[in-house]
């Protein structure tokens, strides 16, 4: 009995030690992203994190002379993760809003965005007012400006919030929700380029109200990291000037997302 006990203790201590030694202290520059938001950030079949956001981020890192490690983090915890030092900046299609500025600092916008309504093809929804949508089920990803928009604009509707955009899309495709509000570009990508997204289409006017859309999409940093912010801003301007931005942009989109033209 005692010999077995000793062996068990030894093995388990080793296991605990091994698991704690990895990831206890980190030194390199780390880029935080969600990894569930195609085409901006997503996880490929082989496990790598890719997308427009990730490419821009890695290019920026190169220009400021650092090797970047890409860390995936769930959207709900992405800002707390930054504040808890899990990574050094967030590049995950995050809209710059006043509310968020209370917690984090942003660089200059690296692309402009708008939101849009999405409905199933053949849906009878034509008006987008609180009265018209009073008993409809409207979905969005939680913790996003879209969620804020729905809660503010359609208080009488049945609002559903999901941890990831994928789950909103899944429920949209299966008909659980009557409408969703999403980012223009990912929604365009979903409805035109994917099999399950073919069920649905964009509807209504693009939502560009700055109260919800903010000043554009930026990179979030901890408020005290001024130096890093300046470096990233400078690198971004360089990328715009020498055409690297355009190269990356054209891989994913037909329009210049920096200016939305």
């Amino acid at each position, binding site marked *: 009995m005692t010999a077995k006990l000793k062996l068990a203790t030894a093995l*388990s201590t080793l296991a*605990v030690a091994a698991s704690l030694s990895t*990831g206890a202290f980190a030194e390199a520059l780390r880029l935080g992203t969600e990894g*569930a938001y195609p085409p901006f950030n997503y996880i490929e079949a082989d496990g790598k994190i890719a997308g427009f956001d990730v490419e821009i981020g890695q290019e920026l890192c190169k220009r400021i002379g650092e090797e970047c490690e890409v860390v*995936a983090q769930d959207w709900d915890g992405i800002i707390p993760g930054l504040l*808890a030092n899990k990574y050094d900046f967030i590049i995950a299609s995050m809209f710059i809003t006043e509310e968020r500025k209370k917690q984090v600092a942003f660089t200059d916008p690296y692309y402009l965005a708008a939101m849009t309504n999405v409905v199933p093809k053949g849906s009878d929804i034509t008006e987008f007012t609180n009265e018209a949508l009073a008993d409809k089920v409207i979905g969005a990803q939680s913790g996003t400006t879209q969620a804020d928009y729905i809660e503010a604009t359609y208080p009488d509707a049945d609002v559903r919030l999901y941890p990831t955009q994928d789950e909103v899309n*899944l429920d949209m495709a299966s008909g659980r929700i009557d409408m969703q509000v999403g980012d223009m570009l990912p929604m365009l990508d979903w409805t035109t380029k994917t099999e399950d997204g073919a069920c649905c289409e964009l509807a209504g006017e693009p939502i560009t109200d700055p109260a919800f859309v903010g000043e554009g999409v930026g990179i979030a940093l901890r408020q005290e990291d001024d130096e890093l912010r300046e470096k990233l801003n400078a690198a971004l301007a360089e990328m715009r000037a020498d055409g690297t931005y355009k190269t990356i942009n054209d891989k994913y989109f037909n329009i210049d997302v920096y200016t939305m033209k």
Partner: protein
Amino acid sequence: MFELLSYGDAGWGDEILAGLAITMQLAIVTLPIGLLIGFVAAFASMSRHAGLRAIGFGYTTIMRGLPEILTLFVVYNGVGLLLNKLAVWWDPGGTNIEFSPFAAGVTALAMVFGAFAGEVLRGAFQSLDEGQMEAGRAIGMSPRKIFFRIRLPQVWRFALPGLGNLWINMLKDTALVSIIALDDLMRMTKVAVGVTKQPFTFYLLACLIYWALCVLSEVVLARMERGANRGIRRV
């Protein structure tokens, strides 16, 4: 359907197996820590000092009464913030301490396991036959010897069914770490679902894998119980 589950770049088999590995790692690392916390909680609850008893009671009541997912969120969000505040206070501008999702998962699961285990162990200790301890004292055994040679082996026998149950519950609870972005089995399944749009297939597969783990655990535990009850005559 079977290409979906295959190894390599096209199939999800290897991702899911990798997730399973993390799940097992999580459970195996949590077990000793949880048991340790359990022993501490049991001793606190049985102590002569009223203060210690109160702490033991408070800890087990709170940890057993809170949903595990809430405990997980509190540990994941709270401890990270706390550690960071401590690190900044200790060494401003110094290195960052990372409280990984794995560490958060282990901590939360071990704290919950420890609370339940504390109660199981306490019940086991209190069911011991005092006569045997007296006999030990009568033949001159030191308290240490009595503990390791008489108490502990019997506590083990009594507590095994309860602890076994807790192990199985913990195996299932590891699925919760998928919600805090740890790439365990449940999370890899979620990722596969997101890409393949086949939720039923993959979630069923995940459930079957957990089920297999639990059934396997039950078989091993039954064997251990038989081993622990060797030589005991049922009155």
